[in-house]
């Protein structure tokens, strides 16, 4: 499963990271080395092995369906780059 330069551009787009041709070539070289390491996994026989998602096999806890959080939107929005009338401002999406 060789990673191509086109793959680098594709995943950079999926990850929403702007990347130019020069940076992509360097990233490609380094990712090839990283996948050289990762690909050691592909030879391991894992037939019938239950995937381990988490260190402790515990069920996620449930709680009462009750309001537990106070409204703190002003506090949380105080660290936002652009806010107006309690809304986050982004570039216009629909003309």
């Amino acid at each position, binding site marked *: 499963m060789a990673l191509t330069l086109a793959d680098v551009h594709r995943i950079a787009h999926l990850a929403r990271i702007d*990347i130019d041709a020069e940076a992509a070539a360097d*990233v490609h070289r380094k990712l090839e080395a990283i996948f050289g*390491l*990762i690909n050691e*996994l592909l030879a391991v026989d894992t037939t019938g092995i239950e995937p381990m998602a988490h260190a*402790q096999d515990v069920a996620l806890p449930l709680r009462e369906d009750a309001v537990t959080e106070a409204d703190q939107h002003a506090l949380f929005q105080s*660290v936002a780059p652009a806010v107006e009338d309690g809304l986050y401002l982004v570039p216009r999406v629909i003309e």
Partner: protein
Amino acid sequence: MSSEATGTIAELVRALRSKELSSVELTRALLARIDSAQGRLNAFVTVDAAGALLQATAADAALAKGNAAPLTGVPIAHKDVIMTAGLRTTCGSRMLANFTAPYDAHVVTGLRDAGTVLVGKTNMDEFAMGSSSETSWFGPVRNPWNTDYVPGGSSGGSAAAVAARLVPGATGTDTGGSIRQPASLTGICGLKPTYGVCSRYGLVAFASSLDTPGVFARTAEDCGLLLNAMAGHDARDSTSLDRPREDYTRDLGKPLAGLRIGMPAEYFGDGVDADVAAAIEAALAQFRKLGATTVAIALPTVKLSVPVYYVIAPAEASSNLSRFDGVRYGHRAERYTDLLDMYKKTRAEGFGAEVKRRILVGTYVLSHGYYDAYYLKAQQVRRLIADDFARAYEQCDVIMGPTAPSAAFKVGDKADDPVQMYLNDIFTVAGNLTGAPGISIPCGFDRRGLPIGVLIQGHYFAEAKLLNVAHQFQLATDWHQRAPAEVSE
């Protein structure tokens, strides 16, 4: 004053209670040390002198009234990935260079309730992704034993600060070795508890199934005192474990006679520096003198830990770091054409090279057609590794070996070679995949005079046992009392 101020946490608690020392005097002395070391070590991103002195004044009042908490008046620092209300939390990133969290992490609340005085936030690899503390937007951290060398990472600022006696204790986070490895490289103790013992609430998430808050201090006893204040169930973290409270210092003083130490062949093979191997052998000989026995064990899949980690951690990181999009907090690019371009330019500018690489690896392994081959496969091998450790603990009580394959390396030496950097965590990563605890304690020096650490690992919830094993070693040796030359008493 200066030598009193550089005492251990246990010593400082006694001195504060007996009024030999006030918290204000202590805090002032340490702030002066931080100030004079900052240019050399760059251990801190933010120092809060005014806030620390206010807390110290309140601590002295509590001590005078006789209603002090266990750690009242003891100054500490938090790694800058741990949120502190009102005090900037940067994660060592341009993305969050001006971010001030609206709330405290659970571990911050616990340590504050225990009476500690917060002096500042420590420097680190950007978003805790690294093993050298070189990738911070605020510049690299230097090793106090020799400033040409790295302090390890990612919690290198906390490690350097404790090693240089700028604070007696500090928090860190350990996702692949980020507490244990820098503790080893700076000659101090670093404890990663069992996953779920300390809440992740208020940690800026990197890899949620691996991220573990923990502590740095100079002695095992001090690590126990800090852990007592940090541990505990927290409903705001769904992976926080609801277990009875423990006194992690309760076993200190138990003899080691009968302790079975597992020595995995995989931790003593090629690739371990000769000085490191000799220091670990000497440490094991000391443990035998203390009554322990050593048994050869096998962890055949442990060599796959690094490849497993570099699938799972980037996968989780690519998801966690998607929140940094220039909308709700953090950096936003100044120039862009539309919303998509705003996201892309914001993230290209806000993240450094290593963070971007890991996001890209994670995006790839989770992308259509690769999920089963990489992500599911890595989770299956993770199970095999955990099974190996569980089998090993049928034969032994603790597992020992080197924390890192070598002592510190020079600043810049591995900065452009991610795979070499990743292999520095070869002995620590398994502890994150299994979720079991581990502590690195100092046990010698290499030919260049740089510290070496021994990694003591235990089964789930073995923190109290690990701390006593480390404590007994420290009662019999003085490696933990050695200080870098720059620490003038």
